[in-house]
């Protein structure tokens, strides 16, 4: 695939991610912060998001499988996950955290378990899509094609 086609594909893919609500304005902010002094800024921040999320999802699964459920702790984890997803613009993950916190407050175990599944799903989706996005970007830059402006 040549540079022009790749570029077009990247632009279309990005537009899709935004229109389907996977990403929001904050992701654009990140792209705009990237410059020559820090050319991998977005990838680095998103990697931190992946690391954070995986750790938190593990902790959540563990906490929800305990005999005595510590809802305060669970709420704290969800709060952190909501924060990270919001900071990178992972809109649907952030949204799924909001309902999660409501179930925590209500001490509703079933609700929490369902929410955990939902968050995991959304996380898995956005991870996949962002990896595809970065792959497209990399392939475009390898052809020497100019990146689209965020």
């Amino acid at each position, binding site marked *: 695939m040549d540079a022009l086609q790749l570029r077009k594909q990247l632009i279309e893919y990005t537009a899709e991610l935004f229109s389907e609500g996977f990403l929001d304005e904050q992701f654009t902010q990140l792209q705009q912060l990237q410059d020559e002094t820090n050319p991998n800024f977005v990838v680095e921040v998103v990697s931190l998001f992946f690391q954070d999320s995986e750790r938190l999802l593990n902790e959540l699964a563990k906490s929800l499988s305990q005999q005595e459920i510590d809802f305060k702790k669970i709420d704290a984890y969800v709060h952190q996950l909501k*924060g990270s997803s*919001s900071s990178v613009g992972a809109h649907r993950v952030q949204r799924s955290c909001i309902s999660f916190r409501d179930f925590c407050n209500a001490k509703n175990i079933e609700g929490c378990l369902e929410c955990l599944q939902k968050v995991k799903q959304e996380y898995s989706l956005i991870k996949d899509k962002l990896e595809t996005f970065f792959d497209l970007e990399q392939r475009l830059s390898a052809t020497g094609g100019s990146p689209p402006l965020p």
Partner: protein
Amino acid sequence: MVMAEESEFHVLAVDDSLLDRKLIEKLLRTSSYQVTTVDSGSKALEFLGVHEDDSTSPDSSPSVSSSDGNHQVVEVDLVITDYCMPGMTGYDLLKKIKESSSLRNIPVVIMSSENVPSRISRCLEEGAEEFFLKPVRQSDLSRLKPHMMKTKLNDRTQREEVMEERGGERCGREIEIEPEASQQHHQQQQLSSNNSAPKRKAMDEMALSPDRTRPRATIASTTP
């Protein structure tokens, strides 16, 4: 030791999230500020020169000891801190800074992912200059400079006054200058009257700004 005129502002950013620290550092550097990041309120106080037993270091200013035993002064022009942190919250940190005679003039800004009116008013009442909703944007940072400039001007005026008194004698180190009672009162008045105006303006701006797609700090009532 020569006192250098600082033309750059130095911001201390406090957040327990590594991701958010990376973000705020980038935002601040992009605005041409010098940045130091720490991951907790207690580390922030340590950096500012306040020891665990609540006493301040002998020269009563932020300091880092160098190997030859001389204290180098690390000037911090603004502290920006997350609200929700384990252990010491951003609010606790704000309180400690405002309670410290050497640190109280440092402007403090609070960041939070949650829009809780009572939290916002509590922080502003305790002396925070601004309250930013996360994720913080570059446009938010443009509100920082006036606060840093005001403090720097006050500090510089005080230093110059002391130097004049000494008849041009060189100050060897940064010394703590206790402003006269009346001057301090005036300062506080200035600070508090300045505080209400920009806050109100910021809130009105938010309500009226057409390109603001999400609600920011709104105070529906002031019930604590």
